[in-house]
């Protein structure tokens, strides 16, 4: 596989309120975005565990991001802030182990923002494409 043909495989943890509904909104409005993002729906981004993030990388994800409700507007009051804190912590771990914290990111959208959801998917795909395959994936041999 040549570097130019590299298609990143990215996992997006979304809350079932804003994140997942924004993904639905993108669909209704037929706003296309790169098909490199696997959407994992959770009740709240407060459910996103550092273990989940690391598990995704451990099993070869090239990038991971979290899509939460806007700050101050979490259905579960402050679950999105906990997610943000954990993402920051996980970034430091990824830096430490050499995977790179910049492969992980946190975003906030509202349910209606299908365009923003699509933009984020494109931004992350571009970012990870530029970074190349995750070191874990390379070590896995493919």
């Amino acid at each position, binding site marked *: 596989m040549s570097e130019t043909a590299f298609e990143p495989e990215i996992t997006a943890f979304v809350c079932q309120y804003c994140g997942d509904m924004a993904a639905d909104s993108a669909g209704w409005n037929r706003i296309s975005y790169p098909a490199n993002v696997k959407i994992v729906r959770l009740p709240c981004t407060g459910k996103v565990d550092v273990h989940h993030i690391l598990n995704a990388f451990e099993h070869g994800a090239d990038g991971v991001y979290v899509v939460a409700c806007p700050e101050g507007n979490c259905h579960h009051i402050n679950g999105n802030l906990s997610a943000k804190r954990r993402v920051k912590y996980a970034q430091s771990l990824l830096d430490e182990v050499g995977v790179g914290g910049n492969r992980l990111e946190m975003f906030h959208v509202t349910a*209606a923002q299908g365009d923003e959801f699509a933009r984020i998917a494109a931004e992350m795909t571009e970012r990870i494409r530029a970074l190349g395959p995750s070191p874990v994936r390379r070590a896995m041999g493919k």
Partner: protein
Amino acid sequence: MAEKAPVSAALVIGGGVAGQRAALDIAEAGFPVYLVENGPSLGGIVAQLGFMFPTHDCVLCRGGRDHGYGCTRPAISPAFHENSRHPNIQVHTSTEVVSVEGRAGDFTVHLRQRPQYVNPERCINCGKCAEVCPIEIENPFHEGLAKRKLIDKDTGRLIPDSYYLWEKAEYCETCHKCEPVCPTQAVNLSAQPKEWEVQVGAIVLSTGYRLFDPREYEEYGYKRFPNVLTSLEFERLVSNNGPLMGHFVTPATGEKPKSIAWLQCVGSRDHRYPWCSAICCLHATKEAILAKERIGQDVACRIFFMDQRTFNKEYHAYYERSRELYGVEYIRSRISGLRQDPKTKQIYLRWRDEAGKFHEEPYDVVVLSVGVHPPEQSERVARMLGIDLNDYGFCHTEKFTPVATTRAGVFAAGAVSAPREMAEAFTTSTAAANEVIQLLSALGKPQVPAKPQPAMPEGPARVGVFVCRCGGAIEGHMDTADLAMYAATLPQVAYTAAVDFPCLAEGQEEIRRAIAVHKLNRLVVAGCSVRTHLALFERLAEEVGIPRGLVTMANIREQAAWVHPNPADAARKAKELTRVAVVRAVKGRPVKIDTIEPIPEVLVLGGGVAGMTAALELANAGLDVTLVEKTDRLGGIVRRKYHLVEGQDPQQYVQSLVNQVLKHARIKVLFNTRLVSQSGRPGRFRTVLQHVENGRTEEIALEHGATVLAIGGVPYAGGEYMLGQHPQAVSQLELERILAEEPERIKGLRQVVMIQCVGRDEAPHSPCSRICCTGAVGNALKIKELNPACQVYVLYRDVMTYGPREAYYTAAREKGVLFVRYDPAEKPAVSATPQGLVVKVRERTLNEMLELRPDLLALSTVTQPAPDTADVAWRLGLPLSLEGFFQEAHTKMRPTEFVKPGVYVAGLAHYPKFIEDSVAQAKAVSAQILQWLGHGPVQVGGLVAEVNQERCVGCLTCVRICPYHAPYIDYSVPGIGGIMGAAYIDPARCQGCGLCTAECPNKAIQLYGYHDEALMDPAMPVLGRWEVPSPAA
């Protein structure tokens, strides 16, 4: 079509949020409801709003306490989505009520539904009809600021979730293109109107309001000048789901505006429309904050207003925040006209400041804060129902029966009876539901729907994967047969098929058959949105013995087929999403359901109007009530009210409540009693009370199902303005007593001065107390009635006579009462001289100091939380608001309950309010308790978190992080290593967010539906790499 229904059903007219709330409350209490909406979809004006003030959260996902229908913890709208709807509710849109005959308990209602050219039950939202429709019309959801096709959807999320034909045009007769393209034959242009009758016992009227059309006042240039918008138009344009996707531009230039002005009271507080619309002050504030957030901090936002009516909880803080944090400017001036610069299209506003100086400035955009008016058809509806309207055209209600109309059995909910913001709309709606529940309970037994709960199937997982073709809405974007074949290769998958429409009856039948033939015990549907359709498949599965939790979906439509134009890309992603869904179904567990047997008894704390009303409502419905009063007398603060501005006698009213309470066989009153502690859980609380009598203290223990807090409020008693220090300085309540008991004394007075907002800056908690301006106006009018020659001055900050109360403010001014505004930075000064009191205040128009020498100085002191509020809150583990009152679950959408279930609040303990508001809130509390108490066993739980106590170290992490205070340490249970004390999460309290599961350092907590064994199974990892190689690789 004739529908047979038991009489113990209800009709709700109007499907805005008020009607939705009332319908849901009645349905939850076990009675069938017909919800009738004249428009094509539910939601009313609120559906057009981006989000609410002052909480700034989205209306979509907030609200309900009713587990099980809609999103995991549903809200107003999801609970009405077709597939998630409460089984007791039938929704009829595009339907009007033709006639109502009969009487309370036995109404015959004639309904007429306009032709349903698109059958919402068959519409799959593929949009093919709109693609071929050649006619464009203005989109009413976007206030005409965007277009839609004649057959189309106004916006993405609708209830019913369906396309519809706006109206059949002549062109349609020859065109008919939409009919054959519909893959489900949902479109039928020859559909006919439908008429039928229903029998109901009670009716709720919730037809809401309409916004004033400012074309009536030509001086505002609306529709002539492009840069003049109404508040709702601005809201649409600045909203994320609006036509500009939230990227607002000046209509005439298409550029970012540099300045926006809001003009308040357009179509309110004038000679033609004299009432105050109550919601626009905060709405403008919200819009200005939105403008600052979305357009940019540098856009100048000015609000031209008369009085800043921030009368409700948290409103004043919100207003302050808009000024201090966002830099929104407020100018006290009413603007009566404007002009447009024909070249730049800017709007010039000319205004006079308080000192009388004129200014003229251009603004890029001007927003008219249009008033709240009765709905268009209110007169027809009133005639048909035989109810009276008030002078303004709103539904007439009485002070002490705030949700009763003039016809027995017909109740008013929401803004149909007065302009109301959302918290009040919800309160009155639930109160109206209470009246309906009380009435229907006398007619028949409630029918609480049984929720089937299949057990975990035995044996290995046998997964059925059904791939939706969606009539070409998925098929055509990818190869669904190939996807089904791929799914068949996944572990434990026993059967796969591509199905045309799994959501329609024929598809459901196919799935049902396959489950039976192939002995499937897990169900995966690769189709559309989980949010709209999971509940449908869960119900199907439950009927055939597969429990909730073993049913999963992959959204391959909105999240693959419709967003990835390359079919290979879409297919690959769909495969991966389906694989994840299969693993999660294989590893799933049935949701956790606990059954509790609640004690049908209620503890009410506080014996004022709110507490007594709640006690009476609950006792009348057959629950036993213990009413605890800390003093030796019932009646609360209303005991000190002698007259009301509307004319009723509060003393007589409160006495009649006291008499009813004392003689009620189901109410036990404990005087001189306080709360000591409460333990247990909703349905089974154990409360310890302390009773003091003749110096003897006694502890009383009580077991009950629910708790109502109605411990009231008290007037601030500081010493400002010589209150309590000078015989001429009295409180407004004392003046009221003098007016009632010593009218002769009033007749001798030459001058009375009233000072408003006493204690606003001094008292520990200083919100606007909402009721004092109306109280002062009432007393001023009473003085004028007894002694017309007496001069009355009211020194105020903002006159809060919101809603219909504005009439009394106007009347007082007409009677010669002088209102002088003072600046909080330069308060009036009161001094005592040998000749009596002297009040000095700056008159701001003349900019001169007035020196007043009143015979009597009446001080309107702010209402404070009862002194024991913080103590009770601490003992019950409840939060307090920033004003020091109890903090309800949600300021707007859950105004009568706490996040902690089983505990409710009513009256001044929640916030200062008028008697009618306390009565409505107490009745709303009753309706909420009657929904679950007194029906026998109650199921709680769902997708909740559960502690594996053998792994728990009792570190308190979950206890601290839970936003809902659900976990606690149970010291009777051993944790890890047999050490006593492990966390327990009450399924009745858990809201299923999973925050604790992610924080627990020992991974002792798991969330149903999202177990780590499903998400992180080492044999079947789902979070990392995709299984199907990239087509590019």
